[in-house]
């Protein structure tokens, strides 16, 4: 087997260290290699193929700290048989891991600038490594702005961390929900409504966006209206990835395979393809 095939197709056995309930349907799994060799390091925005023996394999974004690669962390929403099996693992259980795969968020391109993170729903998971990276390398960046929208207060991920990040210097964290009950005293409205609360310096900002594609389209429009160039806006396209290596073609989007050429693309790359119906 070639070195490339070895790296992409060979599975590593990983042991589940912890399963943490984030919301009513979303869980965070922490795993570590079950063998002498550690899991390979990853960059923010990359994903792994996680295999539940006898059930199936799924592409899941790595949501942990890239500065702590020994333990890999995945946040998973339980929506089907395989994801349900994954989040039902218990500490000590074994799963298979392939990867990491994919083009990461270009965090180096944002050095010396403001980093704007815009996330919707579970889209915060692949962006959390960016936040860890910026906070770990604080002097390399100017402001960190996090705009996060979820369906309702009970759907918010990483609530404790959001509060902690908001207290960090030169960091602004704004959270909104589409529907709020009477006990919710935070912001209510779609994530684009948060832009009225931030002052952007368009020439000095790099934006990283992840969420449902419709949400990302509207966020891009807001950013462009505020003067951000398409090459300073990056999106994570979460299409139907299957093999993780660009062989199967499930995730083809225009000339790209999302698993291999993405999932992170610049807005400039994606613009011709985002609005095409049924693509």
């Amino acid at each position: 087997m070639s070195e490339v095939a070895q790296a992409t197709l060979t599975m590593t056995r990983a042991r589940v260290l912890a399963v943490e309930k984030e919301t009513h349907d979303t869980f965070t799994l922490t795993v570590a290699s079950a063998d002498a060799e550690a899991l390979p390091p990853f960059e923010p925005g990359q994903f792994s193929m996680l295999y539940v023996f006898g059930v199936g394999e799924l592409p899941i974004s790595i949501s942990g700290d890239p500065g702590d690669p020994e333990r890999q962390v995945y946040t998973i929403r339980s929506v089907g048989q395989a994801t349900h099996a994954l989040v039902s693992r218990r500490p000590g259980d074994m799963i298979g891991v392939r990867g990491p795969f994919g083009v990461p968020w270009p965090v180096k391109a944002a050095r010396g600038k403001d980093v704007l993170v815009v996330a919707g729903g579970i889209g915060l998971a692949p962006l959390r490594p960016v936040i860890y990276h910026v906070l770990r390398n604080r002097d390399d960046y100017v402001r960190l702005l996090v705009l996060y929208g979820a369906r309702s207060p009970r759907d918010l991920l990483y609530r404790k961390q959001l509060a902690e990040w908001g207290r960090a210097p030169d960091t602004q964290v704004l959270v909104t929900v589409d529907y709020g009950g009477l006990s919710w005293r935070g912001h209510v409205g779609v994530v684009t409504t948060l832009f009225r609360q931030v002052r952007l310096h368009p020439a000095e900002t790099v934006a990283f966006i992840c969420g449902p594609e419709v949400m990302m389209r509207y966020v891009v429009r807001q950013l462009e209206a505020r003067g951000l160039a398409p090459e300073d806006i990056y999106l994570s396209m979460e299409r139907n990835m299957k093999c993780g290596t660009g062989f199967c073609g499930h995730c083809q989007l225009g000339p790209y395979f999302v698993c291999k050429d993405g999932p992170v693309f610049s807005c400039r790359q994606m613009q011709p393809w985002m609005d095409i119906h049924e693509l």
Partner: protein
Amino acid sequence: MEGKSLEEILREHPFLEGFKSEHIRKMAEMALEVQFGRDQIIFREGQESGLFFLIVSGKVALEVSAPGRIFRVQTLEAGEELGWSSVLGEGGKHFQARSLETVRALAFEGARLRQACEQDPSFGYALMRQLLKVVAERLQATRLQLLDLYAPRAAKLI
């Protein structure tokens, strides 16, 4: 509002960005400083409140009452505006507005604003253009809200 004149406060308010000085002066002549305590009802749904507000600080929730419960559909914060329907002067309020924290705002009588618009079409155009922007943004946001984008795919009807 920390010793600032009404004109200064208005000049810094995003709603009046791009307004001519004479138009800001005109707004200042009609403005009244108001304050609401936490959890105070500013106006109720259906109420014939003729006031339009520019929020200077604090947070306001727009709510819809249904039997046995209240839906909080939007929040508005410093730099935003509240009660735009007062400027049209037709019908009652569409939502209930409640202050979630201490709110400081500038209030304007809708009837007076309309009168000023009629007397000075250039001011009227500037004001209506800004209001239309607000209404369009809110319509867009409401449409996105209706799409329920974060719902699990399996739970969607289409």
